[in-house]
């Protein structure tokens, strides 16, 4: 990690000139910012098949941000603030004063030509820590931007002040709310510094450049303090609020951006104050800002830039009205054109979703990268209502940072990941000696597995009982319903909903393994259980023919085969039933979810050989997808198998990933085919679908020649990452999966 001297950085950042863009654009200035001076290796278009609607300057800014240039020049917060060790102050006060010091001292960066401004420039923050305070920050939630944006900080301040005036707040509560007021002051200090910085710039500018800066300044003078009065202010306000959270190391999702911004755009369009292409440029700059942390650290193996900044589009609002509006389409335009995967985006669809939207989704999906996913919202809303949420809240669901469903602005969310497959290995005595391996029939073996699962889930539940007695995270807390009202912090059960979802992964392979044992041992009596477990203990050594027979003669989950799907259904139903027994305890909700999130790698050392024909070192199924190489009948069969499950039983979700070859979705018919997959997914009732259009030849070439593919996003397991930033193990896993596409 390169350490940059802060003064040096400040000097450099103030040397940045200002260009002009669409809002008061000067031809000369744009010419000076031609694409030629893009970072090394970036002289190709963002995507060879994407249309070009945005300006050259916007493309240049995007390439610069994606190249990691900004991330690499981030700095440590290397100063101290005097209250840091003052133990007479409360934790929350010191947190707020740290924020104030950061607001006063963090380097500023406003790039030439940026319409949306404000940068979280501290390295600690980008690593999910609170700078200066030396504490971990928080993540895995979508904060309540939709509540604060329309009222501005001014409205939030009023809310906090009036709560403080009420008599019933205890000392803890008062302390928390007072720290929130300091934080609002800090946010204002930071905003004012950005204004002053721009004013300084303006002094030496002239003509269009001056107008451009003036526009930015007047926007910042209005927001985020006040309610936005137009689209540009709304986008800037959302970014300013978000960026200030980021400056304190908070990773949050954004949530339903089209619902939040749609009305502002509609009003501006009606008044004729803005054109759609201007609005697209403004929103594109929001997307570019979201890339400025890329390159902050060396890749962690699983790819760069995982900051959980999820976006949700479309779907019905709290009153049941469709949200989809012009902003929805602009977002898809931007993703299509800039191919930015750093805001993982999911569209909520239902049976009434217009074809026009489904078509746009298909067009973006086809360019690859798996950036845009699909929620079939009808079943999800039903599952949330079944879980106990009021219908209006259920309808407003978003996600936490991957795809786990939650209610934005009201929720403290986290989850516990476990592996269901190792439990089967334990039952079979592969991991530690077992008392008995005497299972006279399949039912008794199955019962032993379910008992093991029950015990494991009970352990997980006990572990959950005492969580959420931690830091208040006052900055996050003031964006979450319940915290101000109760006077309790984010990790102290302040939020309206405190959720610790229970997640297990590995079910596809567990069910396949159970099927093999049922058939071979109990029905065909091909061999005995103890003979079979011995083969597994030997990791199939000397038994390659049997292993191959199993792989080739069984139709496993994912092939629309009723028998194998029924086995998974059975495990799925039992698992979800067990988790649903403890819906809530100690004020903590525990919805069930199914996931691996790439842990299929992390879990490898604990896993043993599996009855489904896998050696102990095989990387197995991701999330709720079929095991790699077992889905031999293509994507329609996978979706049929997947949709046989009743997803109203998993309120936290169970996603499926499809990898599709570019060749099979070529031409106009390719769009029809992609739309057909999505529509059928909705019709059959799925949960979450990610389609990644990719071929292994491209990935292998990218592994050999990374310089040719600076921005090749691939879907991992709930997020997309640039392929070249994955380490070899992760790259190989993705290539291997891609080679299995039929």
């Amino acid at each position, binding site marked *: 990690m390169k350490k940059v001297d802060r003064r040096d950085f400040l000097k450099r950042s103030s040397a940045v000139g200002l260009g002009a863009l669409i809002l008061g654009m000067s031809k000369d200035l744009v010419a000076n910012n031609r694409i030629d001076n893009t970072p090394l290796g970036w002289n190709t278009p963002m995507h060879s098949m994407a249309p070009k609607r945005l300006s050259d300057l916007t493309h240049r800014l995007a390439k610069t941000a994606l190249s990691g240039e900004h991330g690499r020049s981030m700095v440590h917060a290397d100063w101290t603030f005097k209250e840091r060790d003052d133990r007479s102050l409360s934790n929350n006060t010191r947190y707020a004063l740290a924020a104030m010091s950061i607001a006063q001292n963090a380097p500023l960066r406003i790039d030439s030509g940026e319409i949306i401004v404000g940068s979280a420039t501290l390295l600690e923050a980008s690593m999910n820590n609170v700078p200066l305070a030396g504490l971990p920050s928080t993540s895995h939630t979508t904060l309540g931007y939709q509540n604060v944006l329309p009222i501005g900080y001014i409205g939030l301040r009023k809310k906090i002040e009036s709560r403080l005036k009420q008599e019933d707040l205890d000392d803890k509560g008062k302390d928390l709310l007072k720290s929130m007021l300091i934080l609002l002051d800090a946010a204002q200090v930071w905003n004012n510094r950005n204004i002053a910085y721009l004013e300084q710039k303006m002094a030496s500018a002239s003509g269009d450049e001056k107008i451009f800066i003036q526009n930015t300044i007047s926007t910042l003078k209005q927001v985020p303090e006040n309610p936005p009065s137009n689209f540009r202010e709304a986008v800037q306000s959302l970014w300013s609020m978000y960026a200030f959270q980021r400056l304190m190391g908070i990773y949050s999702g954004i949530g339903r951006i089209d619902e939040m911004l749609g009305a502002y755009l509609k009003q501006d369009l009606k008044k004729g104050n803005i054109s759609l292409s201007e609005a697209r440029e403004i929103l594109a700059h929001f997307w570019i800002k979201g890339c400025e942390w890329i390159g902050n650290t060396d890749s962690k193996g699983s790819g760069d830039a995982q900051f959980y900044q999820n976006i949700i589009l479309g779907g019905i609002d709290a009153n049941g009205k469709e949200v989809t509006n012009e902003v929805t389409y602009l977002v898809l335009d931007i993703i299509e054109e800039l191919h930015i995967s750093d805001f993982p985006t999911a569209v909520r669809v239902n049976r009434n979703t217009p074809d026009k939207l489904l078509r746009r989704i298909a067009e973006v999906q086809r360019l690859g990268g798996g950036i845009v996913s699909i929620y079939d919202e009808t079943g999800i809303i039903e599952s949330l209502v079944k879980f106990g949420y009021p219908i209006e809240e259920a309808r407003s669901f978003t996600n936490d940072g991957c795809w786990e469903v939650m209610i934005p602005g009201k929720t403290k969310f986290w989850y516990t990941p476990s592996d269901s497959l190792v439990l089967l290995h334990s039952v079979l005595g592969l991991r530690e000696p077992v008392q008995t391996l005497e299972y006279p029939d399949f039912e008794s073996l199955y019962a032993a597995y379910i008992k093991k699962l029950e015990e494991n889930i009970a352990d997980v539940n006990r572990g959950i009982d005492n969580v959420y007695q931690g830091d208040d995270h006052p900055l996050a807390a003031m964006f979450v319903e319940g915290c101000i009202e109760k006077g309790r912090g984010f990790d102290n059960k302040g939020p309206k909903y405190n959720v610790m979802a229970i997640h297990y992964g590995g079910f596809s392979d567990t069910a396949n393994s159970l099927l093999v044992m049922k058939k071979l041992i109990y029905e065909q009596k091909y061999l005995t259980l103890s003979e079979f477990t011995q083969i597994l203990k030997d990791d199939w050594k000397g038994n390659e023919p049997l292993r191959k027979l199993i792989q*080739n003669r069984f139709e496993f989950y994912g092939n629309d085969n009723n028998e194998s799907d029924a086995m998974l259904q059975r495990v799925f139903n039992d698992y979800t039933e067990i988790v649903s027994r403890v819906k809530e305890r100690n004020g903590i909700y525990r919805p069930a979810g199914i996931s691996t999130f790439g842990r299929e790698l992390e879990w490898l050392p604990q896993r043993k050989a599996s009855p489904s024909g896998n050696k102990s070192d095989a990387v197995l199924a991701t999330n709720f997808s079929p095991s790699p190489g077992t889905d031999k009948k293509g994507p*329609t069969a996978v979706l049929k198998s997947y949709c046989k499950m009743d997803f109203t039983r998993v309120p936290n979700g169970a996603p499926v990933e499809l990898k599709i070859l570019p060749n099979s979705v070529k*031409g106009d018919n390719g769009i029809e*085919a992609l739309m*057909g997959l999505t529509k*059928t997914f909705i*019709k059959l009732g799925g949960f979450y679908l990610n389609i990644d259009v990719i071929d292994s030849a491209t990935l292998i070439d990218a592994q050999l020649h990374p310089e040719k593919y600076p921005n090749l996003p691939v879907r991992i397991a709930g997020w997309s990452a640039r392929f070249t930033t994955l380490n070899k193990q992760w790259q190989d896993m993705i290539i291997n999966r891609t080679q299995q596409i039929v």
Partner: protein
Amino acid sequence: MESEVNDIKGVVFDIQRFSTHDGPGIRTTVFLKGCPLACSWCHNPESQSAHYELFFNKKICIDCGSCNKTCPFGNAREILQDSELRKEKCGSCLLCANVCPANAIEKVGKIYTSDEIVSEIEKDLPFYENSNGGITISGGEPLLQYDFTIDILKKVKRKNIHTTIDTSGFASKEKFLEVAPYVDLFLWDIKITDENLHKKYTGAPLNPIIENLKVVDLYGTKTILSLILIPEVNMNDQHYKAIANIYSDLINVQGIRLLPYHEYGNSKNERLGIMNHDSYSEPTDKEMSDACKAIQKINNQIKILQ
């Protein structure tokens, strides 16, 4: 053909779901074995014979020896690697394929009843409905197993599913007229437009293929012409002109699709033990787009489909 027999059987070598190149939307393509033509560039050489065959894919063999143990001649792998030995010795008892754990020896061709095919097809019904897709019967030549094909078509049509036949065009006129009412679209292969060359390369006369096309067209069924393009064989203006003439005589033609020759068939030939098969060069992208332009230059009314 009046009475309907329910369990008409046919030999099928593949059923491909999510097929997106054999007609509109998402389709299930059923590949029937047996073809009256014998094009040496065929990308599905296993489709030519109407009988079972064995594929032997040496690359995935794990050397377990089971096939040799079970083979009456004791050397299954050796036999299968050589088309002459296959003819001489192999009794097609299939024992080797049954025991091979790795699917390195694989039986090509499976008997299905038409009902079984229909139930396979029905599995993706919602996908067809949501993409304006349906089913395609391909081959081989579907009309070589005429009873089987028409039975499937009738049953599928009753369920209102869009039907496509991918045909070589080589069968009797009567058969084409009888299936036409149950077919929404024909993908009509035209390989070569010179009578003599056609005979030389495919083993069959050209004339009936074109006559059948006109008959089907007159009947009112939609067609798309499929042109396989092979640089050494048919990528020339003379061919394109002849195609343009055929095209302009048709009333219900929807367009032309250009299919570049692919060496893909070679590896399948090897699995059939056929080592000395003809090979051709694959057209480049540029050659393909030149062909497209050349055809449109002759007649710009011709619609070239992607």
